[in-house]
Each structure stands twice: as structure tokens, then as C-alpha cells.
């Protein structure tokens, strides 16, 4: 039996004796008999080494990323994590602490979060960042609600190319107050937003915000992002941006974004089958009082020394209750710590050179795949960075992915909504060479894709 529950020297007897009780059963006499349970049926207790053996036995059925050449695109990345990052994140003073309600005892985490906020402000180019949200998709959902607090209307515009998961999350965040998420179509050749559609929609009124992403759901850099603010006028403008891309791209604040959100997992956080992730959120200073979630501010202590604390809490659920800007209580503080430690260990030049090398790899692979009959890569005639869309002229992405998996290649992330009954789009994959992929793996991918194509689309 593990010894996590304290029972040093039969102390429970002493505790009961102090209370004058014969047994702990007495402490539950206010639980009605009809609500009492018999057995839970969860099995017997195990020793720690048995737990390790059991979990390891199950984990052996996984085939982790190290066994594959990884080309999975999308918001969740797999990059080498410098050992120093986990050395900090694994410090128990950080990971076993709670939300820093007592600031004087929690300066370490508060300062780390202040540094994290500072970093997202620098990357995003807008004025104020919060101390994190759950993930990129829920951060976009919070941005939708944020826009509605700034502007009247019922419709929120998003690119039709946005990944289906994010559309679904946004639809849920919109559904509470009875709002609608509307898709802006894209040009079939270039994948770029239909700016005319945006202009018309805004002209008709009733639009309270728009979200555009960079790179977008097809991996594209859409230069029209620079024109959107002029088109939107007073309507709030949200940009969902990849932090690594922002190490080389113009920050969205520079082209008029009112809110910049993002998924921060790629900075120092292992993919862990999808979580924990890290939601990034920053906005303009004039909208500070509408910011969702926790925020850390710098101030001084009684001796005038620099100090940090959670601040502007009158926006929050524990004070404002039903009129709070958000229900956020727990966020992703430890992941925010990983984010800022990663960026600091790698450094701005290291980040830019990582993104540059990923972009080169993507270009090499896209041109190799583009020359194969039956494949279109990159699918869209538009600039891209480290990921691009591959479209299959025949066969299915499922068959393609399966074939390449057998050759130890993770070919890419299928696009499109997997729910039965959702519109069936073209067979497309978002392909992103991971940093561990070299020329050899790119060549292997091309060879495997050629073989698939030769066998008439694996059908």
C-alpha cells in the first residue's frame, strides 16, 4: 500500500479520541442512508511498483513520435524540448503550488507569469496579455465573447479554412448568448479569404467581430490580413497566430489586430496526446477591463521594492460572479512557465532560425510531392511557412495515412470534419515537417507517396 495518506503511529486513533468519537463512521451520520454506497468496484490497492508496471504495460501499446518521421501539421507541434525547460517546470516549488492568491509567498510564479505576459505582448504586437487560457481554440472562443462585449451584433466571421475543431469550439462559445459563427469562403486556387464577402457582411451590419489565422488552416500566409482592419472599421479584429511564426512574421498588432490569440504548446510543452496545452490571449490597452482570465501586474511592497500580484480582479468570477468577463479560475500557469523558459533558452535568433529551417523543409517536401501524379502540393497558390496543404486527386486520406504509417511516416493531419453527416470536402492533409525530419525522411516520404500514387491511389 502506498503511503500517501498520513497515518503516522496510529494517529487516527488519537484524532478520533480528541473528538470523542468511536469511529469515523460518526462523521458521516448526516449523509442520508438512501444515498449511501456499497462497493465502488474499482479494484484493490496496488503498490507503487505495480502501478508503474501496469501503466507502462498500457503505454507500450502506444507508438510514440520518436518511432516515426513526423509530418503532422496543425496547432499542436512536436519539437525537441531542451532539457533545461523540464528541469525548471519540474521544480516542485512551481508545480505543486496553487493559483498565487497569497502574492507575498508566490513571487516566483507571479514573476514568471509577468515575463510570460511580456513575451506574448512582444510576439503579438498588442498591449496587454493575460496569464493564459486553456488552449488556442478556447482562447479563440473567449475572443469571440470579448468582441461581443465591445461591439453590437449577432454574427462572428471566421475563415471557412479554419480547422474544424476550432469551428466547433467557436460555435459552442457563440451558442451561449445566441450568437452565430459564419464562414467566409476562400478562393479555390489561392486559399485566400474572400475579402468581398467580408466587406458585404460588414456592410449589412450585425457583425460583431472577425477572426483570421496566420498561418491559416491550410498553412497559408494571407497578405489580406493587412487590409482587414480597414475593411472592418469599428468591428473588432481577432488574429489567431502561431507563436513560432511570429518570431519571423510581422506582429498582428502592427496591422490592426485588436486581439491576438494563439496555441502556445509548441514552446516547451510536449504534445502529451493533446493536453495540457496553452491558450494565448492579448488585447489593446483600451479594452483592458474586458480582458478574460487572470492577469499579473507589477507593483511594490511596503518598502517600495518591486513586487508582483494578480490584479484587476474585479473582472473575475470570484468577485463579479455572473457579471464576470469569463468563468476562468484555473488556467495553464505551469504551461505559461514552460513557454517563457523555452523561448528564453532558445532565444529570439534560435526561434527565427528554427522557423526558417522548417520553412525550407516544407518547401523541399512540397515541391517533391507536387511533382507526383495524383497529388497536389502545395494545394494552394499562396505563400506558406512550415506547413502546407496536400490534396489527393484520388483515393482517401485515410488510406494514404495508413499506407505511409506502415513505412513509419506520419503523413499529415487530415483536414475536414470527421463527424458523420458533415459535408465531405476534398481529400486534404495538412503537412508539416517536424524539426527532427531531415533530407532522408523527406526523400522517404516522397518515395512512399510515389508508390501510393503508382498503385492508383491505394484504392
Amino acid at each position, binding site marked *: 500500500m502506498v503511503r500517501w495518506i498520513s497515518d503516522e503511529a496510529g494517529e487516527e486513533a488519537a484524532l478520533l479520541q480528541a473528538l470523542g468519537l468511536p469511529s469515523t463512521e460518526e462523521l458521516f451520520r448526516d449523509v442520508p442512508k*438512501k444515498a449511501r454506497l456499497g462497493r465502488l468496484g474499482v479494484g484493490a490497492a496496488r503498490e507503487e511498483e505495480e502501478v508503474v508496471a501496469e501503466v507502462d504495460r498500457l503505454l507500450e501499446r502506444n507508438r510514440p513520435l520518436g518511432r516515426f518521421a513526423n509530418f503532422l501539421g496543425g496547432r499542436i507541434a512536436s519539437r525537441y524540448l531542451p532539457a533545461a525547460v523540464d528541469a525548471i517546470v519540474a521544480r516542485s516549488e512551481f508545480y*505543486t503550488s496553487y493559483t498565487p492568491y497569497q502574492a507575498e509567498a508566490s513571487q516566483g510564479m507571479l514573476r514568471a507569469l509577468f515575463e510570460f505576459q511580456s513575451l506574448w505582448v512582444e510576439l503579438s504586437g498588442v498591449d496587454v496579455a493575460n496569464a493564459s487560457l486553456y488552449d488556442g481554440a478556447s482562447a479563440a472562443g473567449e475572443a469571440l465573447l470579448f468582441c461581443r462585449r465591445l461591439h453590437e451584433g449577432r454574427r462572428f466571421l471566421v475563415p471557412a479554412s479554419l480547422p474544424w475543431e476550432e469551428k466547433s469550439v467557436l460555435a459552442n462559445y457563440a451558442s451561449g448568448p445566441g450568437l452565430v459563427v459564419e464562414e467566409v469562403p476562400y478562393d479555390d486556387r489561392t486559399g485566400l479569404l474572400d475579402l468581398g464577402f467580408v466587406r458585404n457582411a460588414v456592410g449589412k451590419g450585425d457583425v460583431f467581430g472577425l477572426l483570421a489565422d496566420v498561418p491559416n488552416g491550410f498553412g497559408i500566409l494571407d497578405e489580406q490580413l493587412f487590409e482587414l482592419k480597414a475593411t472592418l472599421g469599428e468591428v473588432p479584429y481577432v488574429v489567431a497566430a502561431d507563436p513560432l511564426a511570429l518570431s519571423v512574421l510581422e506582429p498582428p498588432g502592427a496591422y490592426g489586430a485588436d486581439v491576438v490569440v494563439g496555441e502556445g504548446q509548441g514552446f516547451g510543452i510536449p504534445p502529451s496526446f493533446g493536453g495540457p496545452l496553452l491558450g494565448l490571449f492579448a488585447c489593446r490597452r483600451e479594452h483592458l477591463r474586458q480582458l478574460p482570465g487572470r492577469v499579473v501586474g507589477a507593483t511594490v511592497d511596503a518598502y517600495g521594492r518591486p513586487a508582483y500580484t494578480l490584479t484587476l480582479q474585479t473582472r473575475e468570477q470570484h468577485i463579479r460572479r455572473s457579471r464576470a468577463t469569463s468563468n476562468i479560475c484555473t488556467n495553464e500557469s505551469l504551461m505559461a512557465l514552460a513557454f517563457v523558459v523555452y523561448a528564453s533558452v532558445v532565444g529570439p535568433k534560435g526561434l527565427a532560425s528554427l522557423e526558417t529551417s522548417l520553412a525550407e523543409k516544407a518547401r523541399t517536401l512540397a515541391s517533391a510531392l507536387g511533382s507526383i501524379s495524383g497529388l497536389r502540393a502545395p494545394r494552394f497558390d499562396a505563400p506558406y511557412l512550415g506547413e502546407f496543404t496536400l490534396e489527393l486527386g484520388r483515393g482517401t486520406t485515410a488510406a494514404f495515412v495508413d499506407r505511409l504509417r506502415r513505412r513509419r511516416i506520419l503523413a499529415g493531419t487530415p483536414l475536414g470534419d470527421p463527424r458523420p453527416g458533415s459535408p465531405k470536402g476534398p481529400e486534404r492533409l495538412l503537412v508539416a515537417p517536424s524539426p527532427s525530419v531531415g533530407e532522408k525522411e523527406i526523400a522517404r516520404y516522397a518515395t512512399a507517396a510515389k508508390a501510393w500514387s503508382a498503385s492508383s491511389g491505394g484504392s
Partner: protein
Amino acid sequence: MSYRQARWEEPALWDLAHAHAPEAAPAIPGVPDRFRRRQALRWPELSEPTVVRHYTRLSQMNFGIDSGVYPLGSCTMKYNPKVSELLARRPGAAQLHPYQPEATVQGSLEISWRLERLLAKITGFHEVSLQPAAGAHGEYTALLMVKAHFRELGEPERRTEVLLPDTAHGTNPASASMAGFVTREIPSKDGCVDLGALKAALSERTACFMLTNPNTAGLFESEILEIAEAVHGAGAMLYYDGANLNAILGVTNPGRMGFDIAHLNLHKTFATPHGGGGPGAGVIGAGETLAPYLPVPRVAKAGRRFRLDYDRPRSIGKVKLAYGNFGLDLRAYAFILAHGEEGLKHIARRAVLNSNYLGARLGRRLPRPFRTLVKHEFVLSGAPLREKGVRTLDLAKRLLDEGVHAPTVYFPTLVEEALMIELPETESKRELDEFAAAVERALDDSPEHLRAAPTSCSVARIDEVRAAREPVLSWKDVRAAGSAKVETP
């Protein structure tokens, strides 16, 4: 009072090195010049030892459970088993991408499937989803499911209200508002739901009643079966806020008490580390009526294979990328395996024993507003401190000087100058006694010392008013204020 937290005069990260010169980011072939960052990212270039030393020093100015007891009421700050940290870092767990083909992630799918079933047994629910990222996220997801249910019944226009007791966690009303409901608070009687007031408030407009049991006053709502009957009688749903589940593990559960849906905080009851504010995991369980609305995907088992099932036509869709915070799910799974049936039941017995023992001792010094048989936590009123010209806040700060964390303060709001205290099952009698002695010493201390506290932390009492009045929220603000010695390029 021998406690001293580290006090480093650690410069800000950006004061440790010159930030970047204002050069443009490198040009990348194929990327339009307009997109190229005109001024490279302004962040310092530092050596690894510099970064590691900086954050190590910061960590030494941070208090965690491994540093000492953490009596935050409703937060269930228990020891985080080290073995869970070990397991979550296995490459088979950490280096797994959610978009890998299902054939390559069978182990994680099976762990998720098993954990769901264990949690279903523990909560008495039909189905469990691991998707929401935190407790409040679980609340919100559950309320969207309630909404979807009434929409399907054709009464979304009518069922617009969510009722909750005045002791509810702040996240409850906030989540209800986000989900588009109007909230109404039901006043408590002696710290528990006033059944008469609840019955009077229930109507055909009620979508849901949200309840924590035991509640935030630490009291078990003994009329829970009558409450459930009244809520269901009005055609509404009963929601269980699982923040306080620790106290009733194996004794009762939300399903048995008549709840329709619940969220659990894995970082409370199941000891996943809270990480200084997160990550959490806000698992939701649902009875048969609401289970069809759970978010997709669901983990399904077909023969010996596991897969992600998207064929749930009544599902609300997604609330988060991928499928839940697996890193935390795995830790909670290990925690449940280790405890087993007897261990889980022991958790509740010991947590409640600790709370009653400590409540009895401290109740001799400060008023306890409600009945004294409590569950996982108890509430004291710091109102008598006013006689010596101090407040609960001063007492909380003074406790930091004792090498312990402070309790939750000023909540629940129906208790004047409230202190809410919870020391769960992992705390020994020695720790309880030492904590009680620390509170007693603090109560006996002079008003001057109380107001001057803390003196043993890395900083003295913080000026919170200034932080809110003149918000300085980033390095950029520091630069703008010109109040720091920053090398501006």
C-alpha cells in the same frame, strides 16, 4: 517563527542581457516582404545557465505543497505523488500526438477508456468525458449540454434560469452566464440550501440548479434527496460541482444523490499538481438523460481495439482541441490504481477526520458560524479580530510568516471576514497541530505585527491598490513607465 523564504534581488530577465538590436527578422524565401518582421523579436539572448539560475531563484521564492501545508479551502491541496510525474514524462505518454493514427495510440486510448469507467463508478454516472480543460470549463460544457437538451425538448426559450445557492463557487454563476442563462441566488439557511426558498424559486423557467455537496461551508446538504426531487419535479436538471468530492469518496456520489450531471477537478480529488494556477482537468460525468450531449470524440471500444467515436449526433461538439488533458488524466489514473477501493474510501474518512479535528481546535479561538459536524473543510469568522483593529487579511498574511500557506479568505461571502480551511488526508496529525499552533500564535500576536506581516517572505505586504490603479502588465509597460533600468535599443 524560524521560517525564511529565499529573498533574491533577482533582476528581470530582460535586465540580464541586452535585448535584440532593432534589425529585421531573417528573410525567408517565398514569404512576402510585407509579412517579414520589421523589428526582430525583442527578447534577451541568454545563455542556458543564466536562464536556469534565474528561474531556479524564482522557484525558491514560491511556496508549494512540497514546501509546507496549504490549507486553501475548496482547493483540496493534497500531496502530488511523485510517481505520477515520472509516468507522465514517459515518451509513450508525453511524446504522443493527438492526430496520430488510432492504431499508434492504443495505449493512451485504453488508459482514457479505463479512467472514464473508473470515474463513472466513483461518481455513479452513466458516461464520463475527459475533454474539458478545467473545472470551470467542465461547468460551462455541462451547461451547454443542459441547454442542448432543452432545445431538443423544444423549450429553450422557456428554460432560461440557472439557480444556485449563495455559497456557490464564483465559477458557477460565471459559467451559467457564459452559457446564456440568467442566474438567481437562493439564500442559505444555517449554511445549507433553504429547501423552502428553493421550492419557491423553482419554476418552468428553471433549467438547472447548481450545487456543491458538501458545500463551501464544509457542510453536507442532508436534504439532498429532497432537493433532487424538487428540482426534477420542476422539470429542471441538477448539477453537481465536484470541487468538494474528496469528502465523500466511496460514501456517496452524485449519481446516488440524484444529480444529472457533474464536473470533477482531477487536480483536487485525484491529486494532479495544480502548477501554480493550472493545468487542471475538468472531467464531466452525466446520467442517461444528458450523456448523449457529451462532447465528441468519445473513446469507444470495439473488440480489443479502442477508437475515437465521432458518431454522436446529439453531441454538442467540441470545447477544446484534441481529447482532454491526457497528461493529467494519466496521473489521476495512477492515483486511483494505487488507492483502490479501500484507499479511496480511506481518503474521505481521513480528510473529514482532519477537518473536524482542526475545526474543533480552532473553533475555540474563532467563531464557527454553522453546525460543527463538517466534511472536508470548515469556515471560521475573523470578525472578532476587529476588536484589536485588524482583519482576516492580516491574519492570513501573518500565517505566511509561520511557513504555512494561508487559508482561503473572504469566501464564502455569507460569513463575515471568512476563513475557509481544508487540510486533506495527506496531512499528518503533527502538521495539523503545528498549523493550529501557528494560527493561535498569530491570533495572540500584536496588531502591529499582524499589520506588518509578512516579514519572512521574499517581499513584504504588497500594494494591491497600486497594481490595479496603475496597471503595469508587461515589460513593455515597464519600458513605457521608464521605471526600470532597461537598455532600450
